[in-house]
């Protein structure tokens, strides 16, 4: 509609433009300015009509006021600016030629009704919007509550369905909530758990730092802690758990609750304990085993200043015989009975009994006073074994050998202590058994060396660590060298030169004596062969070589053949060899044993009875033996070292010599150290002698020199 600028429509437009300009800045509309003006135009037209209608209708003004609110002119300024504008321009632009007084009155009434309409519409809109947003808030609350409920229901299901026990307590320690898994762990009764204080849940086995951990947590200084903890169940049994306690904080970070998660480890723990028990105890006797014993011994040895230990190492005497004769079942029952008796001997704190294996037991006592205690312990053990053990209606006497070791902590290792005890026990055993012996460092050292030598013997022969020294045998009648005794030596890499007394018994024990003896025999016979080349057979016969035979060699079936082979290989005549056998080796010898000796004697080899007079000298037996020489033990010659000589010794030696000669046996004496001795022995009729008076054992060329000197001198 194109309006004439000064026509009624143009004037209405002008009013609308002014109105729009006054109100637009305070509206919240998203309309543009021209759009807004278009929106106001019909309102202005209604106002113009209301101004000029014959009958005044206040509802028109109210409608326009409400329309403003609908156009989002909700600010108070929208109304006041509108009224200001209409007051100034409505009559001016729309009054035309009406009565000014009436028009102004109408305009005022229109403004009043507009204000009322605006206010009513605004109130209604405000109330509606308030209602709408409140409803929205309410619905939102419902939605959120439902979401939370669903989420909480899930959490509740987790809480209740969890396999681990869950408890929530406040910071004062009051238990607020527990789940059913936790109730089951505690035996089911809810009132025994809920409502109780966390501090009531202490147990004697609680770790000492638990209290500190708890205090730190509730003070908010610690977020969580993890311990292995025991609880008493209402029925008095013990519940073991892996317990994790965490601190729960509120949104602002303030500590609020403590959350405990616990896993029942009772079964696992029992299983572990049983496995541990089985690993540390002997299945037969139920006593602690070697493992546990070593643990305790280590602990005792590391106990620190002032602490000591005492140890009784018991080995039953003759247990093997019982096992062999009565069977293993009987042997086992004997061990069980012994174990029970031993157990009763060591009941004080710090004492224990263990079975190390077989018939070996050990009793340990620890503390500062073991010096006295260990003796008492050994005495108790000995007493405990006095009463015979009744098995299958038999009374079995129990005998045992005990090695005792006692000492301060911190000096020796467990292995060293046990070895010492073992050595000491064997000393008790070799002293006849059924007794106890105290450990002695020197005896230990000897035994330890013996052990070392025994293990080193086999390689020593291969490595050529043995050598032979020769001690001359001198004819007393003219002092001429008639031969030599071969004496084996061991040049040990650590211990230096060792005499036969140090290693021959070991070689006997291990059987190495056979190859070693063969080696000695061969070396010595070779040496005799070389002497013969040097000196010829001489008028008095060849230089002879004396070689010792050990009891073991005597029984070895290859003795005769080996000897023959050696003589043949070296080309030495049998009468240049004398084999020395100890008297004790032939005691009670039967014909089987003597047969090889006879064969050797028949071949022309001399057999000498060594150490004669030390054993049970069965003179009657002498006739049976294929012996041609008696070697008198050095104990007889010792009595002649002083002057005047012991007359009893003189008589004995004289008697033996007479007896020997009457049996057609030559007599050799050992240990001659002085000229007086030598003279005495010569007067008594002895044939040959050896000893330091003539020469110490030495290398073969020394003998060569002696023999040479003898021949020329």
């Amino acid at each position, binding site marked *: 509609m194109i309006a004439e600028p000064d026509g009624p429509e143009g004037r209405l437009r002008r009013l609308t433009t002014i109105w729009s300009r006054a109100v637009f800045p305070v509206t*919240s509309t*998203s309309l543009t300015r021209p759009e807004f003006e278009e929106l106001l135009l019909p309102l202005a037209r209604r106002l113009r009509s209301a101004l000029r209608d014959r009958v005044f209708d206040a509802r028109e003004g109210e409608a326009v006021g409400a329309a403003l609110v609908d156009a989002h002119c909700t600010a108070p300024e929208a109304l006041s600016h509108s009224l200001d504008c209409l007051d100034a321009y409505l009559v001016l632009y729309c009054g035309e030629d009406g009565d000014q007084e009436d028009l102004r009155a109408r305009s005022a009434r229109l403004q009043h009704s507009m204000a009322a309409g605006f206010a009513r519409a605004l109130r209604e809109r405000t109330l509606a919007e*308030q209602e709408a*947003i409140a409803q*929205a808030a309410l619905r939102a609350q419902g*939605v*959120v509550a439902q979401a939370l409920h669903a989420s909480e229901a899930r959490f509740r299901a987790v809480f209740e369905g969890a396999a681990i026990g869950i408890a929530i307590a406040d910071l004062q320690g009051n238990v607020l909530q527990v789940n059913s898994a936790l109730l089951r762990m505690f035996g089911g009764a809810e009132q025994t758990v809920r409502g109780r204080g966390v501090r009531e849940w202490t147990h004697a086995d609680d770790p000492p730092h638990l209290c500190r951990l708890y205090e730190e947590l509730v003070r908010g200084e610690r977020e969580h802690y993890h311990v292995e903890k025991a609880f008493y169940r209402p029925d008095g049994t013990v519940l073991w758990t892996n317990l994790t306690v965490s601190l729960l904080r509120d949104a602002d970070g303030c500590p609020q609750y403590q959350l405990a998660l616990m896993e029942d480890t009772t079964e696992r723990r029992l299983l572990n304990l049983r496995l541990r028990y089985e690993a540390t105890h002997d299945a037969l006797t139920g006593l602690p085993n070697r493992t546990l014993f070593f643990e305790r011994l280590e602990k005792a040895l590391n106990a620190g200043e002032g602490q000591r230990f005492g140890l009784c190492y018991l080995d039953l005497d003759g247990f093997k015989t019982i096992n062999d004769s009565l069977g293993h079942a009987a042997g086992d029952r004997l061990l069980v009975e012994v174990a029970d008796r031993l157990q009763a001997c060591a009941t004080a704190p710090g004492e224990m009994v263990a079975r190390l294996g077989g018939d070996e037991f050990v009793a340990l006592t620890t503390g500062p006073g073991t010096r006295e205690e260990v003796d008492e312990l050994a005495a108790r053990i000995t007493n405990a074994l006095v009463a015979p053990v009744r098995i299958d209606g038999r009374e079995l006497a129990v005998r045992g050998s005990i090695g005792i070791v006692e000492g301060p902590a911190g000096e020796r290792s467990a292995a060293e202590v046990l070895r010492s005890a073992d050595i000491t026990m064997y000393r008790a055993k070799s002293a006849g058994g059924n007794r106890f012996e105290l450990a002695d460092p020197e005896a230990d050292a000897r035994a330890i060396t013996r052990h070392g030598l025994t293990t080193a013997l086999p390689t020593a022969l291969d490595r050529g660590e043995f050598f032979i020294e020769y001690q001359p045998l001198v004819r007393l009648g003219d002092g001429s060298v008639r031969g030599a005794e071969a004496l084996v030596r061991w040049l040990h890499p650590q211990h230096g030169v060792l005499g036969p007394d140090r290693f021959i018994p070991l070689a006997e024990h291990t059987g190495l004596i056979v190859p070693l003896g063969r080696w000695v025999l061969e070396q010595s016979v070779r040496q005799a062969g070389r002497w013969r080349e040097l000196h010829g057979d001489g008028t008095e016969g060849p230089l002879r070589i004396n070689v010792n035979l050990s009891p073991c060699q005597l029984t070895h079936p290859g003795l005769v053949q080996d000897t023959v082979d050696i003589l043949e290989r070296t080309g030495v005549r049998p009468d240049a060899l004398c084999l020395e056998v100890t008297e004790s080796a032939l005691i009670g010898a039967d014909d089987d044993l003597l047969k090889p000796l006879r064969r050797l004697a028949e071949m022309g080899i001399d057999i000498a009875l060594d150490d004669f007079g030390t054993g049970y000298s069965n003179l009657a037996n002498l006739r049976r033996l294929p012996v041609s020489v008696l070697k008198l033990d050095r104990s007889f010659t010792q009595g002649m070292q002083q002057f005047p000589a012991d007359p009893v010794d003189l008589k004995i030696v004289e008697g033996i010599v007479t007896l020997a000669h009457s049996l057609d046996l030559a007599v050799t004496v050992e240990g001659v150290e002085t000229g007086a001795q030598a003279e005495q022995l010569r007067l008594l009729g002895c044939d040959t002698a050896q000893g330091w008076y003539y020469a110490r054992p030495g290398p073969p060329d020394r003998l060569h020199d002696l023999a040479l000197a003898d021949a020329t001198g």
Partner: protein
Amino acid sequence: MERPAWAPRSIDISVPSVARIYDFYLGGSHNFEADREAARRAMEFMPGLPGISRANRAFMRRAVEFAAEEGITQFLDIGSGIPAFGNVHEVAQAARPGARVLYVDHDPVAVSHSKAVLAGNADADVVAADLRKPQEILASPELGRLIDLNRPVALLLVAILHFVEDADDPCGAVAELRDALAPGSLLVLTHASYEGIPLPEKRSRSLVDVYENIRNPLIMRSREEIARFFEGYDMVEPGLVPMPNWRPRTAPEDEDPYAFSGFAGVGRTA
């Protein structure tokens, strides 16, 4: 079993909501006293806040109409708040009948109210989700029903990014949304800034403190920082400008001086 990002522990109307505060700036009564109290405090420092809000709405309307002219028929309005007159669906559906609009807000009250307002409108819906978790938006059934991501979408981030702190990686969220959109999609964005506010910066800072106090920090960003949100977009003329200067219909000189606070822009994905 994580609580959805949008679901608060409870609805507490004594805690101000930026959506309802905004409604108050626009003369609405969809608000509670706590909201009005916060709004009044904010307006003490910056009386022009209603003017800024109106400028936002005016820009949004022009941008939606622009998008409709460009042929876009799908609109995703994140941070839509309390629906008021001249909403996106009204503008879009007026310009293009059948245009589809999905509103997103994390304020459960705003969402609930939007649902009531949109009841019966088959082409518009609202989803409770958070801009900071774009996947929640993109995977929502409402989006699946209304928006075809294979066709261009107008993404509206009007007056929302200044409520996302850098720690929550707003750039990452915007980029994630961009990557989900088909070529030819538009990003419609406004953002608060100290630039353009006809007040000393000190007073603007006091406004920031008000939002800080209601635990809804207002992050003022520079033009340069705001421009970064358009990474991967070609700016539509006239670029990133004060709101009244973006394709004005009337002389910008007539605008409220506060309307020039902050920046507005539209970008198009290649």
